[in-house]
């Protein structure tokens, strides 16, 4: 089942890699002053958050074919990572938005009075504080992501859940699924430990 683990990890890392920055772009669009842009983004985010990821996986996989007759991609890691990244970006963008809104207006005012530009204010003063405040929520999402990787089995992407299910049907025993369960649990323990290290690293100051 080792190749399954590797493939699960691949979903995990690529999804984080793409969804974290994509989420920030979503946030910018969502909080844009242009009503049309922010309205569309609001709808997209609500659909992404309001429908099962399983469905979104199928939609990303077959959507291009149904809508435009574009051939589907054979390497299923690609549609899997696309669907996951878009879905998770929606969640992250809501976390970012909450984080940004939680920064007291005094921080903006303090920076404005000192003559900081808008970009300087955002990247020097606001964002570093946002990162700290949203860490616990981000950790929660990452843990959910670890578990959600099992949904990639829908597209026959041979991650650990699919492999262990097939294997347990072959040997007519539960053990492979149990192994998969332990794998997810340990993976999440690692995530928790790493993230609490990061949180500790950021705890040199309090807000």
């Amino acid at each position, binding site marked *: 089942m080792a190749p399954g683990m590797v493939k699960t990890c691949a979903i995990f890392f690529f999804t984080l890699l793409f969804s974290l920055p994509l989420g920030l772009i979503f946030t910018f669009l969502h909080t844009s002053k242009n009503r049309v842009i922010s309205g569309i983004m609001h709808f997209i985010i609500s659909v992404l958050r309001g429908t099962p990821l399983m469905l979104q996986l199928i939609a990303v996989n077959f959507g291009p074919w149904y809508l435009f007759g574009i051939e589907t991609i054979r390497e299923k890691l690609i549609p899997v990572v696309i669907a996951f990244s878009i879905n998770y970006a929606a969640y992250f963008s809501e976390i970012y938005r909450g984080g940004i809104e939680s920064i007291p207006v005094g921080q903006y005012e303090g920076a404005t009075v000192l003559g900081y530009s808008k970009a300087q204010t955002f990247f020097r003063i606001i964002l570093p504080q946002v990162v700290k405040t949203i860490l616990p929520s981000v950790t929660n999402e990452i843990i959910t992501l670890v578990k959600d990787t099992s949904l990639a089995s829908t597209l026959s992407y041979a991650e650990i859940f699919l492999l262990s299910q097939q294997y347990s049907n072959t040997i007519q025993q539960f053990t492979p699924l149990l192994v998969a369960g332990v794998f997810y649990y340990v993976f999440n323990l690692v995530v928790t430990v790493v993230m609490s290290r990061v949180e500790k690293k950021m705890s040199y100051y309090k*807000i």
Partner: protein
Amino acid sequence: MSILSMSNIKKSFGDNNVLKDISLEVNKGEVVSIIGPSGGGKSTLLRCATLLETIDGGCLKYNGIPVTHTNESGKIVYEKNLNQFRKIFGLVFQNFNLFPHFSVLKNVIDAPVNVLKKTKEEAIEEALALLKKMGLEGKENMYPCDLSGGMQQRVSIVRALAMNPDILFFDEPTSALDPELTGEVLKVIKQLADDKMTMVIVTHEMAFAKAVSDRILFIDKGLVVEEGTPAELFDDTKNDRTKQFLMNYNNI
């Protein structure tokens, strides 16, 4: 020529006319205190002066240069480049608004380096001198959260001073502090007054206002009710509203 000149300032939030018609001139080296009941418009006045709120009427000038002018249709238009004026003044907030993720030193030097484009060395040198003067020697590498309220407020004063402003505004600089910590901040402001720093101070500390100010304005309901030297205002109060307000403070 006065550093700050506000004439006939008007400001409303919706239907709430917070500033009805307030004029204020502050000359170099002058210390002006603003007192008055809660909700009277003191903070709003300071926020208009420091460009955190836009005025709806009147005229705002720094060093004689107009920040606003009124266009043909009677609307207030602000200058394009407001940052040139932001260099003239500094503001010390009620709740400090220090940047929590920066050390004390970084709080002080970050704006000089990134806004005024000073070299880091120069900024550090000036910062250390100011911190020392304000009794904060050795605290450079601490973070705001590790300091007492009084120290935080002194750091925020240093942060403002490091921008080398011509005039410094204070909005109730001690009201977020424990009573015993109030003293240290007031002492620092007194010291600045002695150094002839131009200052506008909104405060509830009557004794302090009396001691430090050249001039005191009593503001209520968006208007200057009474204005004068401390002696005039405290010992020879003319207006009934002022009398009543001052009584509240004296009878405890």
